[in-house]
């Protein structure tokens, strides 16, 4: 960065960054976006301190040995604002999110804990709606919320409500999808159309508001995973839900973990209103968050069975193939354009920003 800046420090009193941007003396929003900054935070600050082989696998959950078998533990914290949005509320996300993380590891979700940070002044009616959503969703997913905690913080903190859910799930024999198992030749499938959750939230954010027939896709992916386990079994190499950072981030993470290249075909499924909203704001649907879509890497001979397994469920009825694994450009995700050109689909440094350019 410029060492020769003649910027008068008094003009920026109290704001002059003591260290260059690269070292990030403060936590930035980008650190939570699921892109490169998040990965850097994890790698540079968390792993060195907590390091152990369960954590280092960096799966959606951790597979740990228990008395001769293995269970999966996963945790997720939900900080969405606004708390209520088209298609659901933070409660739906809190249950589906952890249920899905467990399912992505191949586990059948069984028990959840729920920890709440409530802001002083939060409307009880809002809390009730969130709790109703959690109760309903947990029942529908066949999980029980068996323990929890509640704290209240001063007005002005916690955006109304933050919730963390931690889940435990049980693994079956020989079904161990993992982000490092993808191999050249594997087929890459998505379970549904992309971008609904992220754009549903955008639609209600101040300064960007627009009116759209877009609802969050929050849903449990566990039934799809069960069907995949039953009809494909070991042919399922990796599963990942495409949450923050969208499909692009999920693919990059797997490409990286497995040391393989990913090649996407020309187009991925995006519902027309999501496409329109993205066009308006200059956003790329590949990077928009989903809460009910997963990507599955499967052995090529299992492709048809895997698609059929997912399509048998309402949540997966539009499951489709989007690409394949290649030995070239390991760790990179590349898209072949309709013209025959190539475009690298990299991880974004932070959140995707609407643009005018």
């Amino acid at each position, binding site marked *: 960065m410029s060492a020769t800046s003649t910027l008068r420090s008094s003009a920026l009193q109290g704001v002059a960054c003591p260290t260059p941007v690269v070292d990030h003396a403060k936590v930035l929003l980008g650190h939570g976006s699921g892109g490169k900054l998040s990965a850097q935070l994890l790698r540079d600050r968390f792993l060195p301190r907590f390091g152990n082989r369960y954590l280092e696998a960096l799966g959606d959950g951790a597979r740990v040995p228990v008395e001769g078998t293995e269970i999966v533990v996963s945790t997720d914290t939900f900080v969405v604002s606004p708390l209520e949005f088209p298609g659901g509320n933070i409660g739906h996300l809190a249950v589906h999110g952890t249920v899905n993380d467990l399912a992505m590891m191949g586990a059948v979700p069984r028990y959840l804990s729920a920890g709440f940070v409530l802001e002083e002044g939060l409307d009880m009616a809002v809390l009730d709606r969130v709790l109703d959503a959690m109760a309903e969703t947990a029942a529908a997913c066949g999980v029980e919320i068996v323990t929890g905690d509640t704290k209240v913080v001063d007005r002005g903190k916690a955006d109304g409500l933050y919730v963390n859910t931690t889940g435990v799930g049980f693994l079956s024999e020989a079904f161990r999808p993992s982000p490092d198992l993808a191999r050249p030749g594997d087929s890459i499938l998505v379970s549904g159309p992309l971008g609904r959750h992220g754009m549903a939230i955008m639609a209600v954010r101040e300064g960007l508001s627009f009116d*759209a027939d877009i609802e969050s896709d929050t849903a449990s992916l566990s039934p799809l995973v069960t069907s995949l386990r039953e009809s494909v079994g070991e042919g399922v190499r990796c599963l990942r839900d495409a949450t923050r950072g969208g499909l692009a981030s999920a693919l990059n993470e797997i490409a990286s973990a497995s040391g393989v290249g990913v090649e996407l075909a020309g187009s991925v499924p995006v519902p027309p*209103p999501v496409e*329109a909203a993205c066009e*308006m704001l200059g956003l790329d649907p590949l990077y928009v968050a989903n809460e009910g879509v997963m990507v599955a890497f499967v052995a090529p001979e299992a492709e048809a069975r895997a698609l059929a397994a997912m399509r048998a469920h309402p949540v997966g009825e539009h499951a489709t193939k989007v690409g394949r694994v290649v030995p070239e450009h390991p760790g990179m995700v590349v898209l072949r354009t309709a013209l025959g050109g190539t475009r690298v689909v990299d991880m974004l440094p932070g959140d995707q920003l609407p643009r*005018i350019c």
Partner: protein
Amino acid sequence: MCLGIPGRIIEMADDAGLPVGTVDFGGVRREVCLSYVADEVGVGDYVVVHVGFAISKVDEEEAKRTFEVLREMSQLDELEWMADLADAAEGVSP
């Protein structure tokens, strides 16, 4: 610069003297300032919108005409290519 996308005016109104409208972009609707196209548009017309402002009315006739020209051009190419193939098959150089 200049992310501008076409949308259809579905409603027009006046916001304290400012001509505004609701524009539908393939299923997404937003309020748009129509000041710069006010004299030439009505409900049902398409406009190009940049940062919440309609900057032009889409000339649908022109759009159709030039698109047809483009389409013809691509089909002509196919015919030429097929002719080249036929010539090659007969041993005639294209």
